[in-house]
């Protein structure tokens, strides 16, 4: 009898919890505001061009820039530049992720380390990464390592902070439950602390990538290695030639890469939050 009443209650409790909507309508709902925003920006740009506020060779019209972009995609240099910049970004980010995760886990777990390094990590985060370049160039000369050094310094603190706040905000109740089930020491970390802090860690990684990408582009404007095309180098070179069309089309490439990376992280973040029941 109790079992019947139970299943009746369960059915009532769950009614109306299932939500859905087709994939297509969800994709459309997420896309149209972005399309609208893009059209808005292009519209303003076009209007400013027509107003004659600046000479056409300083501020070209959108049509011209996109035509230039299309031409550029046919050259090997263009893809070379993207490949170099992306490789630097990914290597730097991977290194920063490794260092940040280990450092964050160590600081979160060992009290003396936290006292010593906790505020240092946050302080490091407030340092604009471009301010590191003069020292980086003195230490590593004009080299890949100078760029890598600054990218890692820019990204690792955010990632470490993500881990630390993730571990700090594991609900104590879950820790008690885990310990009651016999999870001690490493097992507690593996089965409770690590999965519970995953959403915060992903947020840290996302922020870390944003810092890495900014540091990297700043670095490529300053650390120019001969005969190695990169997006930052390209930007600097085109400015020296007063080629506004080229500068803007390169900026669009940088912007699109940034948006794509952000989309990947946001997707991971959303999946995780949904699985965790947070969203």
């Amino acid at each position, binding site marked *: 009898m*109790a*079992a019947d*009443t*139970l*299943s009746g*209650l*369960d059915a009532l*409790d*769950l009614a109306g*919890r299932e939500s859905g909507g087709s994939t297509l309508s969800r994709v459309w709902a997420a896309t149209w505001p972005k399309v609208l925003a893009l059209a808005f920006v292009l519209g303003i740009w076009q209007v400013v061009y027509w107003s004659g506020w600046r000479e056409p060779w300083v501020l070209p019209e959108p049509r011209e820039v996109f035509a230039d972009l299309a031409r550029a995609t046919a050259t090997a240099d263009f893809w070379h530049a993207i490949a170099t910049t992306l490789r630097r970004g990914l290597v730097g980010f991977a290194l920063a992720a490794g260092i940040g995760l280990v450092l964050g886990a160590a600081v979160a777990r060992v009290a003396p380390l936290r006292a010593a390094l906790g505020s240092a990590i946050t302080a490091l985060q407030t340092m604009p990464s471009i301010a590191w370049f003069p020292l980086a160039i003195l230490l590593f000369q004009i080299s890949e390592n100078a760029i890598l050094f600054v990218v890692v310094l820019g990204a690792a603190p955010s990632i470490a902070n993500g881990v630390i706040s993730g571990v700090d905000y594991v*609900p104590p*109740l*879950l820790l*008690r*439950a885990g*310990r*009651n*089930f*016999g*999870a001690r020491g490493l*097992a507690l970390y593996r*089965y*409770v602390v690590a*999965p*519970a802090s*995953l959403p915060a860690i992903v947020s840290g990684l996302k922020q870390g990538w944003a810092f890495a990408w900014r540091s990297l582009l700043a670095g490529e404007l300053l650390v120019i290695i001969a005969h190695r095309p990169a997006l930052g180098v390209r930007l600097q070179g085109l400015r020296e030639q007063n080629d506004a069309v080229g500068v803007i089309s390169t900026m669009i490439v940088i912007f699109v890469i940034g948006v794509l990376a952000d989309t990947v992280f946001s997707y991971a973040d959303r999946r995780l939050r949904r*699985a*965790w*029941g*947070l969203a």
Partner: protein
Amino acid sequence: MTAEDVASVLPERAAAERLALTLAGVSKVFGRGPAAVHALDKVSLTVAAGEFVCLVGASGCGKSTLLSLVAGLDQPTGGTIDVAGGARPGLMFQEPALFPWLTVAGNVGLPLRLRKVPRAERAVRVSALLRTVHLAEFGKRRPHQLSGGMRQRVAMARTLALDTPVLLMDEPFGALDAMTRDILHDEIERIWQERALTVLFVTHNVREAARLGDRIVLLSSRPGRVVADWRVEVPRPRRIDSPEIAAVAAEVTDRLREEVRRHGR
């Protein structure tokens, strides 16, 4: 009945039975010096194997602290706690405390996984446990997709997966609506009987204690001490709205109010 009367009767009775839990002079002090809080003061209590004991008391009586100590999650400042056979008691909280990154089946299977039970055996055990709490079809769901009462049943199944003879429950139904709570009373009673468990059940709901307990133990507040111990002689099955249960609850409530008044002076 006063604590002294009970104390003279109960140890004899308990000695005749097998004891599952023995607390002798258990004290717990938080902090030091003048700021120290005496949460528990020389609490002595025995629970026979298979007994369902409800602990009641006003807020600040250290009920939850006591359960943490028995569960081994915290160490007493003084006294000893003995769990028969050295078993680790299972602990349930007012919140289900399910792991949101695991499915329902994953949650129930975690204590087995931590004991290195092989995957195939684990699957069999998990589905049997889910049947026990009438959630056989919900193994693949996530905790957030279930109602509060269902989550608490998942927590119940997960605690049972510990295979422990002693269950500690810290107001497990406190956050549920009355109807769900009444049904879960039937469920916990059935599982307790089927599995011959020993239960130490903390609640501030005196009626709930009278409905479920073989015994009701009253703790005083600040510091927590055992001040009274009743045996509930109402035969099972019981109903929470029956006059017999109401009578027991009234007696306990009177004594509890007396305790609370002591603090007003």
